[in-house]
């Protein structure tokens, strides 16, 4: 499966929770598949989906799912020790690991070569790290939510993209409706 197929698969789970979605195609795909006020789309700032999600999870009680990519986690690798050392049991970091920089033309990442993000996360001190196959993402994600334990999921999937329109919604509108969903 490619990322957009996984997002389509897990959309019914995601819509029940607060979602912080990575820049570029992941946000555009999620926006096209199932736009929700409870989705925070990143329009810029590669690498910070996991940090925004952690800050959000530490500041209120609803479940937060950050959808990140292997490339963007590599961009902000310092996020993993911060996550490990500031446990928020309402936080799930879902890394869609397709081994490539999808939004920029599928150039290979180091995670697609020798680097194993699950081992990096464990070495950083993350206590619940789960590796899953693309087809199992929904089941694993739901189990992580139900466990009420902070979890890092590394979902191994194929690289590839579908044609999607860019998000034209104003960033302040995205932020405002998201904050209303947070406080609802």
């Amino acid at each position: 499966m490619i990322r957009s197929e996984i997002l389509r698969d897990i959309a019914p789970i995601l819509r029940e929770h607060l979602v912080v979605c990575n820049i570029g195609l992941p946000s555009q795909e999620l926006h096209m598949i199932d736009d929700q006020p409870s989705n925070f789309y990143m329009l810029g700032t590669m690498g910070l989906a996991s940090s925004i999600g952690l800050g959000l999870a530490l500041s209120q009680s609803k479940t937060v799912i950050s959808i990140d990519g292997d490339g963007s986690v590599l961009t902000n690798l310092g996020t993993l020790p911060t996550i490990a050392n500031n446990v928020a049991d309402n936080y799930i970091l879902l890394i869609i690991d397709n081994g490539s920089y999808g939004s920029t033309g599928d150039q290979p990442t180091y995670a697609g070569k020798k680097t194993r993000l699950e081992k990096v996360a464990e070495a950083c001190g993350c206590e619940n790290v789960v590796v899953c196959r693309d087809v199992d993402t929904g089941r694993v994600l739901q189990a992580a939510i139900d466990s009420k334990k902070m979890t890092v999921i590394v979902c191994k999937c194929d690289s590839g993209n579908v044609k999607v329109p860019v998000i034209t919604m104003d960033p302040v509108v995205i932020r405002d409706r998201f904050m209303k969903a947070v406080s609802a």
Partner: protein
Amino acid sequence: MNIDKKITDDLVVNDISFVTTVPCKQLAGVIKEVEARDEIFHIPSNKEDEGMGLCAGAYMGGKRPAIIMQNTAIGVTINTLATLIQYYRMPLPMIISYRGELREPVACQVEMAVHTKALLAEMKIPTYHFHHQSDVAEFDAILKYTFMCNKPVAILTDANFWGGYGDQ
């Protein structure tokens, strides 16, 4: 006056309860004070752009955030300031150690100091410079201003403000 306590008191009075820090020698006292307060959740960051991401999330979660960092980090955070904090219109007080100013012993610090105000001005970030200890009296008003206008606001605090580096 203990300026570490005064700064932290003003954070608490303004309901700032989520503070991320990247250390600097000059900021050690205020970081220690922030860590000690029950009203503040202190979360150290590994890099300042990561810290701004944490602050953005905390703000959307209903908390008032702040970041404490060095001015060298202005070079690290321009993209995050433009495409996250400013683009989504989020308030963020930035308490910045202004290295490379008068009484600075480390020459390399001057190399970013000469760019600091120019970069902040280019980013249209309201900027205040604390040079004398008495300047801290405005800190409370600056925090109120930040959450009134929903912008990142820089408070540059130089070595003279912190009392210098001893005999160096």
